[in-house]
């Protein structure tokens, strides 16, 4: 029952933009505004996807470890800058460094474990597996870390007096902030846990939908979906755990004084 997906003709695709026109008409008529933003978003989506399509097409046709690793690095860098952008307020350069290291090491470990031990792709850099699957792990870890960093930073700001009080009684800094780091960790992995809860009932996950459209049997599709969910869970756990623990140390100086500007 494995068959090819229906190809969409360019003219049909152009027709799909009618949905953008509907949205534009509504916001204009109702004075909601933001037409510029909607146009920009549609435009960016189109250009970005076309570019990615051609790049991937080329990379898949010319399998090469440097391409796969190169794309991985580019995705990591984009993800890390995306996290910096999503943090409310300023963060210290040492915390930024921790975020980058956690993201990079946590995702790398889980990506290679996932691809080489669970899926067992061959060769190890096989781009049509390597790139999209890495992308999913990186994307989910990025969301996790963003949530974790925000909870961490706000937790420190909101509880500054309490932490100071703990220190004045003679608490070790990391013990003093244990509740904050634990909560940040939990909040960061919660979306992943929630999506596992609803998976298959509330929604069909994107990757599974894609595989079915591409002609895979639902049974094959769920096997991949289960595997990728585990991979995502592992990657989110590792990156966030790393970031929360090492990151909370950046709020103290070497004299164990709280350090919030």
């Amino acid at each position, binding site marked *: 029952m494995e068959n090819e997906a229906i190809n969409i003709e360019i003219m049909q695709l152009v027709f799909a933009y009618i949905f953008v026109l509907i949205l534009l008409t509504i916001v204009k008529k109702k004075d909601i505004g933001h037409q510029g933003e909607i146009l920009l978003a549609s435009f960016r989506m189109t250009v970005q996807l076309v570019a990615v399509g051609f790049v991937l097409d080329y990379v898949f046709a010319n399998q090469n470890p440097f391409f796969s690793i190169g794309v991985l690095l580019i995705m990591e860098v984009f993800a890390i800058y995306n996290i910096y952008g999503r943090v409310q307020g300023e963060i210290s350069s040492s915390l930024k460094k921790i975020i980058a290291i956690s993201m990079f090491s946590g995702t790398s470990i889980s990506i290679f474990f996932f691809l080489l031990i669970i899926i067992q792709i061959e060769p190890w850099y096989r781009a049509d597996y390597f790139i999209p699957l890495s992308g999913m792990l990186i994307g989910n870890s990025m969301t996790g870390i963003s949530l974790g960093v925000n909870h961490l930073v706000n937790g420190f700001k909101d509880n500054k*007096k309490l932490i*100071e009080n703990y220190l004045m*009684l*003679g*608490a*070790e800094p990391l013990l003093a902030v244990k509740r904050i780091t634990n909560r940040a960790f939990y909040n960061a992995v919660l979306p992943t846990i929630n999506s596992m809860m609803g998976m298959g009932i509330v929604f069909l996950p994107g990757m599974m939908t894609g595989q079915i459209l591409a002609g895979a049997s639902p049974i094959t599709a769920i096997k991949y979906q289960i595997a990728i969910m585990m991979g995502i869970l592992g990657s989110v756990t590792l990156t966030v755990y790393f970031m929360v623990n090492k990151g909370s140390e950046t709020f103290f100086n070497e*004299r164990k004084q709280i350090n919030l500007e």
Partner: protein
Amino acid sequence: MFKLENVKFKDIIEINELKIEDNLVTAVLGPSGGGKTTFLKLLNNMISADTGKIYYKNRLIEDYDPVKLRRKVVMLPQDPQIFKGSIADNFKFTEELTAKKYSDDEVYKELLKKVSLDKNLFDAAEKLSGGERQRLALARVMLLEPDTLLLDEPSSSLDLETEEKIIDMVVKYARNNCRTMIMVTHSPDIADEFADRIINIEKGKIV
């Protein structure tokens, strides 16, 4: 006990020379914003002086592990924070934070009596009034039996009568147990009545 030499912290504190004796009660007076809280924080290394030297028991403060120092020199902040849970939880968490074993409830009850807090151990601490919270926070500090107590306005939310009673109690506790006590207060009367020595801090300087 404490010795300060040419200590400067930002443009907030500037102390050329100061000694604070062992086993005595020292009161710190001075106008609001004068630097009293900052002064106390220098003594338990919650902040570090920009220049100058601070000694505790003839040893540079920066040579101590800060946490170990703070367990000997415990500070009660000006607006102490109450911890979640019951009054007993407040005591227990204090012990957890400082890697101590939990004491018997009797010990906690005894402390409540000392600070004249007529409450049950299992009452919610968050329901206490401002003055009651202050006394609970003082009891938490006494639970740790530190060598030195740094008290930042420990009686600011108490009425005159309770204030006298509490300060009298903690001063006696310090004297009977050979402890050093440094207490910021807004009340010259309290300072005169209880302190062996009074320090005045104005615009960051001892006057």
